[in-house]
């Protein structure tokens, strides 16, 4: 077991230092995982080998986590951001879930949660779920089909009494094709769609921007749409204890949980926006675990015995071009820019291995993600040639924009400045415009060609373990107003046909193939420049065991225990 641990640590180190790519890491780690037992791989990710062999998980203990920002409201239908979802998810469950106990898989598998089985009708329009029996919400209300219907209608049915516009805004992609919810009996629920939606099931397990989980109808009626955020009531393995804004959120083990109970007694989340403060608190033992350690401080903490854990996540940091800008209308220019940027350099030197160079626009950790995807090579000479061929022998001037911070944005300004330097080398003078995060979203949403927001390119970072995400960021119906919600604002429609076909394809293999084709088309048309995939580093004290960094942006805390 020590041998495989050493081997694993070797490739882990190589991966973190950028010497091997993510796909090599996944492949090799799977091989090692197959050679050793699953427990060994798990423990070698975060636990000293000596302890792993003898220690058995212990019940009890409080885990204190230092988070990178304050949480949004604890209403899972109406809140955004992974920071909040990581807590809400412990308290609320949906029909399906992702298996987050396995870290050596390319993407998480779908497992039953509150639904024990499901089937899709022949016309692909009706999904029937058999509900688990004997499940209760934290306030004792029984979970049944009526509860499911009540929750879903809160999010999509405008004339329902419990309808909540904010929830509706956040869960648009989930329920966009939903016609009605039927409850043939209290143990069965049916969703009837208006058209086939291949990624529907994977969309049901997403979080971080409205989620398809269930809140107790009794609690919703009692506290109202606004008040429920102060009294989250789900069916999950943890239940809400207390929240002091800006200080902590406390959740505790649910003693009446229907499934395998967690080991931990309590989890306390402490928002600590300052990376230095987080790391100090970890070092002083005042927190057990922190998210987003500053890349510069990681080595120091590791020397003191703290563990770093990171891995592939569905996260893409990218710039989308304004295709109405005269500079970017020739595809050669866009391809050239893709070749001009040294992504590996940025990942290694600037981000110190806490991220890897992106390969294609599709987010990692979704079924159609291709680890063998051939993206543009880093070739500034060729880039310069292409730009000259496209009619800009002396380059051109352009303005790009990004935010100065924000959830998942990593360190946007230094990264943008790195890109600025790379572009200068091929003759493009890029002027950088920056805004604070919330202001930035206001501008980003308008698209790149709005009179009040004319830029050559703007940056965003997010992703999902669902292939449909590619559609959200590149389909022309999602372009800026007047079209829709404005997700990429670049005015690209080249992949629409493939994306439309993929959207309604129910066969997973065929669907993946279509999304892959779309991804290739998107690469060829280059409406965007994917730069980086974050590895979501986190650090914890050696006392924390059983933590799994699955290929997702949030975690299953029921496997965690304190030594």
């Amino acid at each position, binding site marked *: 077991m020590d041998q495989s641990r050493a081997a694993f640590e070797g490739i882990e180190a190589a991966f973190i230092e950028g010497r091997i790519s993510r796909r090599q890491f996944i492949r090799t780690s799977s091989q090692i995982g197959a050679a050793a037992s699953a427990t060994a791989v798990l423990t070698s990710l975060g636990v000293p080998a000596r302890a792993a062999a003898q220690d058995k998980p212990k019940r009890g203990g409080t885990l204190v986590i230092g988070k990178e920002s304050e949480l949004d409201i604890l209403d899972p239908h109406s809140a955004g951001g992974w920071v909040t979802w990581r807590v809400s998810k412990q308290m609320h469950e949906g029909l399906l879930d992702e298996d987050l106990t396995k870290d050596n898989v390319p993407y998480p598998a779908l497992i039953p949660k509150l639904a024990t089985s499901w089937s899709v009708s022949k016309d692909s329009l009706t999904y029937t779920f058999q509900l688990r029996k004997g499940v209760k919400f934290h306030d004792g209300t029984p979970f049944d089909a009526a509860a499911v219907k009540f929750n879903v209608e809160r999010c999509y049915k405008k004339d329902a009494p419990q309808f909540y516009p904010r929830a509706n*805004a956040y869960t648009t992609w989930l329920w966009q094709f939903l016609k009605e919810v039927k409850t043939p009996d209290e143990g069965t629920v049916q969703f009837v769609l208006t058209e086939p939606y291949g990624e529907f099931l994977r969309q049901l397990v997403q979080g971080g921007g409205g989620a398809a989980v269930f809140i107790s109808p009794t609690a919703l009626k009692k506290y109202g749409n606004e008040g429920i955020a102060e009294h989250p009531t789900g069916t999950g393995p943890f239940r809400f204890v207390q929240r002091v*804004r800006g200080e902590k959120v406390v959740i505790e083990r649910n003693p009446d949980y229907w499934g395998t109970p967690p080991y931990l007694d309590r989890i306390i989340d402490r928002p600590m926006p300052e990376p230095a403060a987080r790391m*100090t608190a970890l070092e*002083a033992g*005042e927190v057990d675990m922190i998210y987003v350690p500053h890349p510069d401080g990681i080595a120091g903490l590791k020397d003191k015995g703290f563990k770093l854990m990171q891995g592939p996540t569905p996260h893409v940091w990218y710039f989308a071009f304004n295709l109405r800008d005269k500079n970017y209308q020739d595809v050669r220019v866009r391809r050239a820019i893709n070749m001009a940027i040294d992504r590996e350099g940025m990942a290694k030197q600037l981000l110190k291995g806490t991220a890897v160079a992106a390969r294609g626009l599709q987010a990692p950790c979704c079924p159609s993600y291709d680890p063998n995807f051939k993206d543009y090579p880093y070739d500034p000479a060729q880039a310069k040639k292409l730009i000259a061929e496209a009619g800009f022998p002396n380059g051109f001037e352009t303005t790009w924009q990004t935010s100065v911070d924000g959830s998942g944005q990593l360190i946007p300004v230094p990264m943008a400045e790195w890109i600025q330097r790379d572009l200068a080398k091929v003759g493009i003078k890029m002027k950088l415009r920056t805004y604070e995060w*919330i*202001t930035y979203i206001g501008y980003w*949403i308008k698209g790149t060609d709005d009179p009040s927001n004319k830029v050559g390119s703007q940056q965003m970072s997010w992703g999902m373990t669902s292939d449909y995400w590619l559609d959200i960021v590149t389909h022309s119906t999602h372009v800026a107003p007047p079209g829709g919600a404005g997700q990429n604002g670049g005015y690209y429609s080249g992949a629409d046909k493939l994306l439309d076909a993929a959207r309604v394809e129910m066969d997973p293999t065929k669907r993946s193939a279509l999304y892959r084709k779309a991804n290739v088309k998107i690469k060829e048309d280059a409406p965007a420049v994917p730069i980086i995939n974050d590895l979501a580093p986190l650090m914890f004290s050696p006392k924390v065991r059983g933590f799994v960094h699955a290929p997702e942006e949030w975690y299953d805390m029921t496997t965690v225990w304190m030594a």
Partner: protein
Amino acid sequence: MLRYLVYRVASIVPVLLGVSVVVFLMMKLVPGDPAEAILGPAATTEKIEMVRRSLGLDKPFYIQYFRWLWKVLQGDFGSSIAVNVPVAQLVWPKFWNTVLLAGGSLVVCVVVGLVVGIVSGTRQYSWFDRLGMTSTLILANTPGFWLGLVLMVVFALRLGWFPATGMYSMRAADKTVADLLHHMVLPAITTAAVSAAIIARLVRSSFLDVIRKGFVTALRARGLSERDVILRHGLKNALPPIVNIIGLQVGYLMGGALFTEVVFSWPGIGLQIYSSIVARDLPVVQAAVLVTTFVFVLVNLGTDVIVAALDPRVRRA
């Protein structure tokens, strides 16, 4: 005395109004559209117009000001943009945490300042005096954030005597006073350092002044004990400027506490202002500045009244 009291109390009303105008105008300086900031990803042109109208942003400035003032007087500071809760809910608990820290710091700086100042003042040119004056000179010029970091490295991280962050232990089931005091030691020393140095120097020079003026010799000649001379007569005469400077220091403590709170993650209003500035959550910044300034004005009022009670010359001015 009563006349002075009435005059002083009456004079703070225009000041408070002026403060409210300044705070209101400060928010108008902000670049960017508040409606867009609130709507975030859901913003479209009609929604923006709707939010602007609901916020009253389409009305002229002075109407916006009076509306805002009316709400503030009722305790309604609006809603936080970043976390979607009433600002008052965020601000008040944090404010009391800062009061606790400022209170602890005040105790430290007054005690240390008085002791060092009196001993130095009555033993001029002794080794204690020289040491005291050098260290107060250095401390008075020390940035609070840097001192905090130094204390944290030495006493929290290296020696482990005190906690490095926060107000209470996260793991403890109950909040105890002992826990609070344990967490308060380093932040209080950090916040109090500059003020303690200033008070020490002032106390010393006031005492030297008093001694020079000859009281002390006369009193000694009449046979009073050293302790009596110092404590009853020397202190009484030196007191007005001392109380004055202590009152001024309260303002510095509340401002200086901001840096301490950021370094030690003390959940006070300074840290809240800082996080809200970073998050561009300006309604919170506005409310926090207003509340803190209001209290500062009241504290100054109190100090002036005490000084006037002690020193008749002030009342006549």
